[in-house]
């Protein structure tokens, strides 16, 4: 009953923040040393502290560090790593990087470069999916001139979505409600696409107004076994980026779940997929119909909700599959149990259009308790810079039912203390408490409407008193770590003698 030694002597993690730490934990549990890489802005970052070794790979700008393939491969060679885990974002869905890693005789912990390439091109992948009989959203690819875009949009009917052909994660994506907005949207989307993915090609498709975003986690080993680990409902989004995810979806019937799971497995099989991946669907709850949106050929930010309901450790399995291990389970042996919800804690200001907030973390106290998990990338004293994604932590809860998971999440959000940067914690509390969320009525554009009703907390009398007294109290307790009053206010003997008789 021991863990089979894996063939990796050291794994380099080509990422930062919470996901780098998450992967390092898995490495530790598999007895494999991990190598962190970091930019000059991250010299004191938690992922650097957490690794067995750390290599500086360049200046703060991602292009010169976390996106620099040569520096990453040099770091792997330098440290003696024989495998690279890309995490999510950065180079995780870059087929050239996956190829370069394999060419350097290192193992890429993820799917094959061919799978990434096939799914990475949104236009090509859509054609492939149609061939594999996976339902897709009406739309057009390979458009060049503004005239062609106009014609296509007119044919589909507004609103339409303009998005990067090579994209993902909401970058290079614009909703266009009328022809007059089309031109600027294309220009902005092109620039963001070029900046984020090095590829300015765009595609255009029907934008579903009351759409839900439901995705299926798939996983394959290198021996042809491909299973799905059920769905995640990810409809709570701002700027096309998810902020709250859950599993199971409150909207899926067992029949739809089975059909969607099957479609996702077919989609993955069509590109010879192995390792972890996610097939995203747009789901229309009124018609119980769904369309293939894209496949993310990597570990997803929200993988913990699947871990909690499936009981499997997805990151350990990524490493095991990359090492050639075979799944000991089959689809029929996998079950969803209970309910999991994830809230992404961002350093951002919901009251100012969710603009990122930077600064030094004066306090960072994570909630704890049964059924609460926090995947974080920071601790008190760390500095949140403007160079990278403002994700501070992921708060994930498990409950027996959706209702108990929501209740647990509400409490956990209240118990998460972050000072020094503005966060979306208070805002997410209002989402969790909303009747629309309880009823599963939150579609992908719900946040945009709802956030206008929301205002941040106004200082209360108690807050003013606490702020004023803090200067006195903390000054007094500098030399010792706590002060206590001698007399106890709840002493019942002060009021009556009933206990002493």
């Amino acid at each position: 009953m021991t863990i089979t030694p894996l063939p990796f002597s050291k794994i380099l993690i080509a990422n930062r923040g919470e996901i780098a730490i998450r992967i390092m934990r898995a490495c530790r549990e598999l007895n494999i040393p991990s190598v962190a890489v970091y930019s000059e802005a991250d010299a004191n970052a938690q992922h650097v502290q957490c690794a067995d070794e750390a290599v500086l790979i360049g200046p703060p700008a991602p292009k010169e560090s976390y996106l620099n393939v040569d520096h990453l491969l040099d770091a792997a060679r330098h440290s003696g790593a024989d495998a690279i885990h890309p995490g999510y974002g950065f180079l995780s869905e870059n087929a050239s990087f996956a190829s370069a890693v394999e060419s350097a005789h290192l193992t890429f912990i993820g799917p094959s470069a061919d799978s990434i390439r096939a799914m990475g091109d949104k236009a090509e992948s859509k054609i492939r999916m149609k061939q594999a009989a996976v339902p897709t959203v009406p739309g057009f690819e390979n458009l060049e001139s503004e005239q062609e875009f106009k014609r296509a949009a007119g044919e589909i009917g507004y609103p339409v979505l303009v998005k990067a052909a090579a994209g993902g994660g909401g970058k290079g994506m614009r909703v266009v409600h009328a022809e007059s907005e089309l031109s600027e949207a294309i220009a902005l989307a092109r620039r963001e696409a070029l900046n984020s993915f090095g590829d300015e090609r765009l595609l255009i498709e029907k934008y579903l107004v009351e759409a839900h975003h439901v995705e299926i986690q798939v996983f394959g080993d290198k021996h042809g076994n491909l299973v799905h680990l059920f769905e995640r409902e990810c409809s709570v989004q701002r700027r096309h980026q998810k902020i709250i995810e859950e599993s199971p979806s409150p909207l899926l019937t067992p029949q739809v779940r089975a059909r969607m799971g099957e479609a996702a497995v077919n989609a993955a099989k069509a590109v010879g997929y192995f390792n972890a991946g996610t097939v995203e669907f747009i789901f229309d709850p009124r018609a119980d119909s769904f369309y293939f949106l894209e496949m993310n050929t990597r570990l997803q930010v929200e993988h913990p909700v699947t871990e909690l309901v499936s009981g499997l450790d997805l990151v350990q399995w990524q490493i095991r599959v990359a090492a050639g291990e075979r799944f000991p389970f089959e689809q029929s042996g996998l079950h969803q149990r209970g309910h999991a919800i994830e809230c992404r804690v961002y350093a951002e200001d919901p009251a100012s259009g969710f603009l990122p907030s930077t600064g030094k973390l004066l306090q960072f106290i994570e909630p704890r308790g049964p059924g609460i998990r926090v995947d974080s990338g920071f601790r008190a004293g760390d500095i949140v810079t403007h160079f990278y994604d403002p994700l501070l932590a992921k708060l994930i809860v498990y409950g027996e039912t959706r209702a108990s998971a929501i209740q647990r999440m509400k409490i956990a959000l209240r118990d998460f203390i972050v000072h020094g940067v503005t966060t979306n914690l208070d805002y997410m509390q209002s989402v969790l408490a909303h009747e629309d969320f309880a009823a599963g009525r939150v579609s992908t554009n719900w946040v945009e409407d709802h956030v206008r009703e929301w205002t941040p907390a106004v200082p209360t009398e108690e807050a003013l008193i606490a702020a004023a007294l803090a200067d006195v109290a903390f000054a007094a307790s500098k030399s010792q770590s706590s002060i206590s009053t001698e007399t106890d206010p709840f002493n019942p003997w002060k009021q009556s003698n009933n206990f002493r008789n």
Partner: protein
Amino acid sequence: MKVTFGTHTLEITPTGDSYVAALNDKTINVQIVRADSGRLDLLVDGKRVTAYVSSDLAKRWVTLDGQTMLLTKTSGAKPGVRHDYAGGLTAPMPGQVRSVSVSEGEVVKKGQTLLTMEAMKMEIRIQALKDGRVKTVHVKPGQSVEREQILMEMEDE
């Protein structure tokens, strides 16, 4: 001790093992049960209250009952300095100026994009809040800017 946060002024007086806080014509009894590591366990008029408080110069971050509030300690005499500089457009966050779409003296419409910034891999458009004329442009493409740095100044047409 007299403390002012924005428009609120508190008078705090120690009395034996507790404090009396005078605020908005109300008198509140406060006792410090325990204070450590940025956490205060208080009794406010007999009610147990746990507050997390951090100080950053004049700023006080306070979390009470899961609600986080940012207070700024000000001198009681003067009103607080306003951050939205009159007539000026300030950077909403630290980043880099990507492009400046207008020049000094140009007449602009409400909602028109004046400048784009890049921060955290996002492109941010700075738009005119109302119709007017560009008075001064303080920044150039490629320039790094701090949060609340004035980017350009506007005037009525």
